[in-house]
């Protein structure tokens, strides 16, 4: 395998031409996205450089508490992103969502790094942090979709849910279709990704490994693990969170407490 080709700063700046294309498109078509593209570009560079230095430090420190601490910070940041996407003020969903993300993502990352890849020790930051990062990044989007769908459908179908309650349904029966729809909405993107992987697109992780000089046959094994891991962690977290939040949409008397739109 050839060694990795380092990207110099001038080469990195050359990549800004892609941003220039996006900015020009936005300007010509009057999309109003120029400010967002600028902020996004600055944040991408700043956040990734920061992460690069942080990871260099963490890999060097080789401390389990630091690895777990970084993991908690990543999940904590993720819940803020989910909050930004789910416009819900009435039902408190943040704490159970955070705790579910923390426990399910930790278990997934632990399972993959320790048992599937066989890393010793299990917290080896070079494996644990990227694995956890992929789990958090993907499942966070799925969770946001599921939670948003659950709340919006509870509001839209409020009268129908109440009708079912009035006909003797318990809260689970009255919201069964909404619950299933919310979980499906969250899980479909990761299932679709399994359908298209290797045919329609080469995933980021595998591309990164190949660019870094890894054997493609080793890279695909990692990618297979990642694809399975993402489907599993997405299913686990969306089901647990949707179950908890669904209960919170109903009061003690199993009355729907989510108000109409």
């Amino acid at each position, binding site marked *: 395998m050839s060694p990795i080709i380092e990207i110099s700063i001038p080469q990195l700046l050359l990549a800004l031409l892609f941003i220039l294309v996006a900015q020009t498109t936005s300007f010509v078509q009057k999309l109003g996205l120029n400010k967002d593209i600028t902020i996004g570009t600055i944040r991408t560079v700043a956040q990734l450089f920061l992460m690069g230095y942080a990871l260099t430090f963490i890999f060097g420190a080789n401390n389990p508490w630091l690895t777990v601490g970084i993991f908690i910070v990543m999940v904590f940041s993720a819940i803020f992103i989910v909050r930004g996407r789910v416009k819900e003020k009435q039902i408190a969903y943040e704490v159970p969502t955070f705790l579910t993300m923390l426990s399910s993502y930790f278990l997934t990352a632990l399972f993959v790094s320790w048992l599937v890849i066989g890393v010793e020790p299990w917290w080896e930051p070079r494996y644990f942090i990227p694995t956890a990062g992929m789990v958090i990044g993907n499942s966070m989007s799925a969770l946001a979709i599921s939670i948003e769908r659950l709340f919006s459908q509870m509001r839209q179908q409020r*009268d*129908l849910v*109440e*009708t*079912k*309650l*009035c*006909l*003797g*349904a*318990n809260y689970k*029966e009255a919201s069964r279709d909404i619950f299933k729809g919310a979980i499906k909405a969250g899980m479909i993107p990761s299932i679709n990704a399994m359908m298209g992987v290797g045919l329609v697109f080469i995933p980021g992780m595998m591309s990164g490994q190949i660019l870094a000089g890894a054997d493609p046959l080793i890279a695909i094994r990692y990618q297979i693990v990642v694809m399975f891991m993402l489907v599993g962690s997405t299913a686990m977290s969306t089901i647990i969170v949707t179950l908890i939040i669904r209960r919170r949409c109903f*009061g*003690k*008397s*199993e*009355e*729907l407490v989510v108000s109409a739109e």
Partner: protein
Amino acid sequence: MTKLLELRDLSFSYDKGAPPVFEHFSLDVRKGEFLVIKGPSGSGKSTLLRLICRLNTPRSGSIIFKERDVSEITPSELRSKVTYVPQIPQMIDGSIRDNLQLPFSFAQGQGKSVPDDSALEQMLDAFYLNDVTLGQSANKLSVGQKQRLSIMRAILTEPDVLLLDEPTSALDAESAAMVFSIIERLNTEEGKTVLIVTHSDYQPDVPQARSCTFRNGNLECS
């Protein structure tokens, strides 16, 4: 007649700090009674029905059904015995048959025998719905047809009490008369206890009828 429902000292407001809809409200409903509750919009008529079947929770006070506090009864069990039919009829996507059999798909209705097609067709006739078929889409019916279908669906599991919220609000005079005659028959022939909320000047033609009007959070009954 024995008391079936007792509302004791109920107080309720929709939000903390909002003006109360009820303050120390009490009402007794006897078995087989036909109670018509009238009053202007916003007087609390619908809220009263929603409180009885626990779709809203009172701030204080108690509701007794068959000598048991409703808070001691599983909500789904209570609602299968004290069934509320909302003002705007709601149908699930599917046929009329699917909608009529819906209550039997819930755990609460699973012990009960599901009426077969011929029984349902007979009931459709009795509900002036002889122009529809069991296989047609329920959501394509007119509002008046849906109103009748939703009442029919509510009584299939044989509740003790029917709580009807403005069952004729969107209907013309002819359809409204049909709905009222169905409700009256349910009371006189099947002995159902009926609480009906309406803002029309409906005068029931049944022996057990009592008319009450909401004024300032209190009911004045004749």
